């Protein structure tokens, strides 16, 4: 099987400081990769480089045989609204707050050329249902939604064009635990049903335990350990990973 995404020696510095360095991995279709680490460990920098929001200093990000670092911007932006999806930590960054829920979901469809109002609206209704938002909220603005609903709306808006790769930056950050649990359940279902590949950045080990097949642990811009999720979490080798795992509060 061909990898969907090949990351080779990504390095990004901010002046003299290291954002992330020497990151390489392959991601196969249908696989979910978790990236964990403390604040400032470079995981968000890495995600930005992978998703094309930031330009890495060196290295290659090869998606489906094409290097997204060197490809022309129109092509990269086309990828970003068709084959890729990006779920922001704060739904306000990923949603248009002044546009109704239906319009938010429909935007990606219209961006790739949908010009039939009825079809767009039906698809939007269908997707709101899939993320457990009532169809009668379709004309409400995201500002009238709760935090959890906003996050689910953002996910619907991203998945509506059937992407193959989803980048998620702390998708459950800022949500209370019961809402987190429902969101994770929903995400797991969607990822499995649609056969998505995903890269999830988080500092919540429970999230990766539930969603990720493989895990990468970062510290100070370096990858200190990677492997199967259960293997890394149950038998951590690196001192930092051991610290991370032992720091989880038990209820």
């Amino acid at each position, binding site marked *: 099987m061909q990898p969907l995404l090949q990351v080779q020696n990504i390095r990004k510095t901010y002046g003299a400081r290291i954002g992330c360095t020497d990151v390489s991995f392959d991601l196969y279709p249908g696989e979910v990769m978790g990236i964990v680490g403390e604040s400032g460990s470079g995981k968000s920098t890495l995600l930005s480089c992978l998703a094309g929001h930031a330009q890495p200093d060196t290295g290659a990000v090869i998606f489906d045989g094409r290097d997204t670092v060197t490809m022309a911007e129109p092509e990269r932006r086309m990828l970003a609204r068709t084959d890729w999806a990006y779920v922001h930590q704060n739904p306000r960054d990923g949603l248009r707050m002044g546009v109704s829920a239906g319009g938010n979901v429909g935007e990606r469809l219209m961006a790739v050329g949908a*010009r*039939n109002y009825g079809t767009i609206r039906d698809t939007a209704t269908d997707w709101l249902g899939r993320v457990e938002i009532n169809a009668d909220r379709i*004309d409400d603005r995201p500002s009238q939604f709760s935090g959890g609903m906003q996050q689910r709306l953002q996910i619907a808006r991203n998945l509506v064009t059937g992407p193959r790769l989803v980048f998620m930056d702390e998708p459950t950050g800022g949500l209370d635990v019961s809402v987190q649990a429902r969101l994770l359940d929903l995400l797991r279902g969607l990822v499995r049903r649609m056969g998505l590949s995903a890269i999830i950045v988080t500092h919540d080990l429970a999230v990766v335990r539930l969603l990720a097949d493989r895990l990468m642990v970062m510290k100070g811009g370096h990858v200190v350990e990677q492997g199967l999720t259960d293997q890394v979490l149950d038998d951590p080798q690196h001192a930092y990973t051991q610290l991370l795992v032992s720091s989880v509060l038990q209820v």
Partner: protein
Amino acid sequence: MNAPQKNTTEYNFAYLDEDTKRMIRRALLKAVAIPGYQVPFASREMPMPYGWGTGGVQVTAACLTPDDVLKVIDQGADDTTNAVSIRKFFQRTADVDVTERTADATIIQTRHRIPEAALTEGQILVFQVPIPEPLRFLEPRETETRKMHELEEYGLMHVKLYEDIAKHGQIATAYAYPVKVEGRYVMDPSPIPKFDNPKLSDNPALMLFGAGREQRIYALPPHTKVASLDFEDHPFEASKANHNCDICGAGDTYLDEVITDDRGSRMFVCSDTDHCRTRQEA
């Protein structure tokens, strides 16, 4: 330099100095070469407030020659404040002939209307534009809207129309209705009623758009294809008040609703005063 000028003045012909006019003409040439593309230009401060047509006035000044016949309209009328003051301005600074008859004019500066009478080859229509960027209220960042034009990412424009239908059951945008020029640039046609949109397409006259405060010029050369954006199942419709003109009886013109007393009486009259008068005289 001491060419005899009637009536005036220490002003250079048409107020602006020749270097400025040359700068504006360069922008105009570029705008004509790329229909619908917004060309930045070094807009000057004019002796009138922003929002009163400073962009249109500069474009008119750059196009005006002593032999031109100028017509100025504001919402279709020749006798409203904005039209009167701009007409006077050019009479005083350029000493050109002016007219109220659309057919006689070589340059027509307009605020928010296209004359009802068909324009002809050789005529120039100058629009006053408050906000040239059609994507502005959807995307506040100028860097981003430029990129969207560059990459032809116009999905967002349809989001606005989608919102209209979702909220009002139809496309409720009635003026400044976005258009696509020659299948490439999405353009704000200035706040003309959408009734006028079909006249933008394949028009034999040259149409120039000037936005003074926003420092942008754009253009539609004669016979440019201009399509109003819409959905397959909600096609564009050039709407007007469902009425005939109460003065000339015309049923095919854009109408103003005029309140005539405080007990609810009203009348509908042509917004194009010249067209209405011509019909009455005929």
